[in-house]
């Protein structure tokens, strides 16, 4: 069989690691030896051990919250740049929006720690203004902090696809909406939003899929109650030296993400019916 170079490249890059993880998940680890007899033991443990379920549910919740927050945040920004910025200034605006994201991801996470911390910028600012007596504690080392940090990190990735979808909308369609008797708001609802849906769906997928697998942010700002499934996978691989268990958890997590993502795409096709 003849395989072209790009196909080979794709296989090496994607299929091989995935295959390896899949294979590993059916093996078991006995201290230092890897037992390669195929078994479902890891999956049984994943099912029976409540901690894994809890982490997975929390991961989905946090990712969902991050996705909603990011898209809700990104839409008005994309809308503003697309509809209210003069055409020749648009690229400048997009450029400015991405500037904060030139610094390393880790530095940004640490910055949020500085902002949200017990003696952080936010707390000292608020108490300086006399708005609070005691530092707020619900903003760091828990799920809220993870949501805030991740939403900020993924904002530009959500803004861009929504912006592109909005840019593609023929402006005379909006005038037609007004002309046919609808207010600005109803025209937005009946014309702009449905036509922006492909961008919103892209943004949802772009944010949701990678956040499920994030383990840096939860580790740094999440505290014990903000840890996610990826932290457990990392622990299995690196600390507990149980790669097969980690692999099984990774497969389960991927399965959930795939099902949810496909469900979303299907929903979009079925109900929002954006044909362009």
């Amino acid at each position: 069989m003849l395989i072209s170079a790009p196909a080979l490249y794709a296989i090496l890059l994607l299929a091989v690691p995935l295959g390896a993880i899949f294979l590993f998940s059916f093996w078991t680890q006995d201290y230092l030896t890897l037992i390669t007899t195929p078994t479902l033991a890891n999956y049984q443990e994943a099912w029976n051990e409540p901690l894994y379920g809890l982490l997975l549910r929390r991961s989905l919740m946090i990712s969902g919250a991050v996705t909603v927050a990011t898209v809700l945040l990104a839409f008005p920004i994309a809308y503003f740049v697309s509809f209210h910025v003069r055409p020749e200034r648009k690229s400048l605006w997009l450029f400015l929006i991405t500037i904060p994201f030139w610094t390393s991801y880790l530095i940004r996470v640490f910055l949020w720690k500085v902002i949200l911390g017990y003696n952080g910028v936010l707390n000292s600012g608020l108490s300086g203004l006399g708005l609070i007596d005691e530092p707020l504690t619900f903003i760091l080392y828990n799920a809220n902090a993870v949501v805030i940090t991740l939403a900020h990190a993924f904002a530009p990735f959500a803004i861009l696809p929504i912006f592109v979808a909005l840019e593609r909308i023929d402006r005379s369609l909006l005038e037609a909406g007004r002309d046919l008797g609808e207010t600005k708001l109803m025209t937005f609802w009946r014309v702009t939003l449905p036509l922006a849906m492909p961008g919103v769906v892209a943004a949802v997928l772009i944010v949701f899929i990678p956040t499920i697998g994030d383990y840096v942010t939860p580790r740094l700002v999440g505290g014990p109650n903000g840890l996610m499934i990826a932290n457990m996978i990392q622990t299995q691989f690196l600390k507990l030296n149980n790669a097969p268990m980690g692999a099984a958890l990774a497969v389960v997590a991927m399965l959930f993400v795939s099902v949810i993502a496909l469900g979303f795409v299907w929903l979009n096709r079925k109900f929002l019916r954006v044909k362009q």
Partner: protein
Amino acid sequence: MSGPIISLSGVQKYYGDYHALRDIELDIAEGEFFSLLGPSGCGKTTLLRTIAGFEDASDGALMLSGRDMKGVPPNKRPTNMVFQSYAIFPHLNVAENVAFGLRKHGLSAAQKDAKVAEALAMVGLEGYGGRAAHALSGGQRQRVALARALVLQPKVLLLDEPLSALDKKMREQMQGELRRLQRQVGITFILVTHDQEEALIMSDRIAVMFEGRIAQVAAPQTLYRRPETSQVADFIGVMNFMPATAQMAGESVETEIAGLGKASLAPDQCPGGVATGAVHVGIRPEMISLVFEGEEVKAATAKTTVVEQYYYGDMTYYDVALEGVEKPITLSMKNIVGRPVLERGAPARIAWDPRALVLFSA
């Protein structure tokens, strides 16, 4: 019939420093097929969009069926528009597009379907309701846009160059259909076009615009035969302009036209106003004819030479030089049986009827 359905008085529009509409005075009657005609950039679209409510006039008043439209948004005006790009909603099918504006009409689903079907039938698209918007040809998109506007029974339908995106054959067919549709529904149509033939064919009245100003408002025949300015005469069809001197002789104007000689013009041949001294006299190519041997002529004649000949099949156009005049004039002849086509350089005698002459000041 009561007053005009649309009345503009002293309307001005500025885009920054640019004066896009200047002193627009215009009354349009109910049920009229009215055209705005002018070269690119003269402000036709701006005027139409001002009526629709997409642009605010900088000054002046716009009345729509007796109501002042100042500050009234497009969705509250009794007008609907057919956009140049048609603006068909890509996320909706044909029926949903047509039904878009019916949301607030308080109709049952069945009533709505009936209205949509009726509107689609009117534009010749029966059974197309389920079609996706992207699966339509240019002509069909245009019909959907028409149906979508007409289903709302507006007082005025605004059309911005609706035929310019169609090929010649389709355009000619739609010109006829639009005219028929307008007579059938009796709604006032305002058509923007830069195609003078289209305006002449379709309209009850035409406003010719140049650089933000209305130069003349008249019925097609008046506009063609009695243009008020040389600019209008030049824009509509072909006009030969000849220098002349004029002086009053009682009611009429006596002119001495270079190359053609003396002619007496009645007051109605001076639509832009009677002028004397150095003037121009215009005549359309089809109002001049070649005189062949043996033909009897009642009109005035002159001797010329054929400078250039253009054979169109049904017609032949000639540029002929008058004796002692440098600039040739253009005339056209129908190619009927037995009539020869003259070659370049041939001597030719021409005849014209002085009643076809139009006088322009300076």
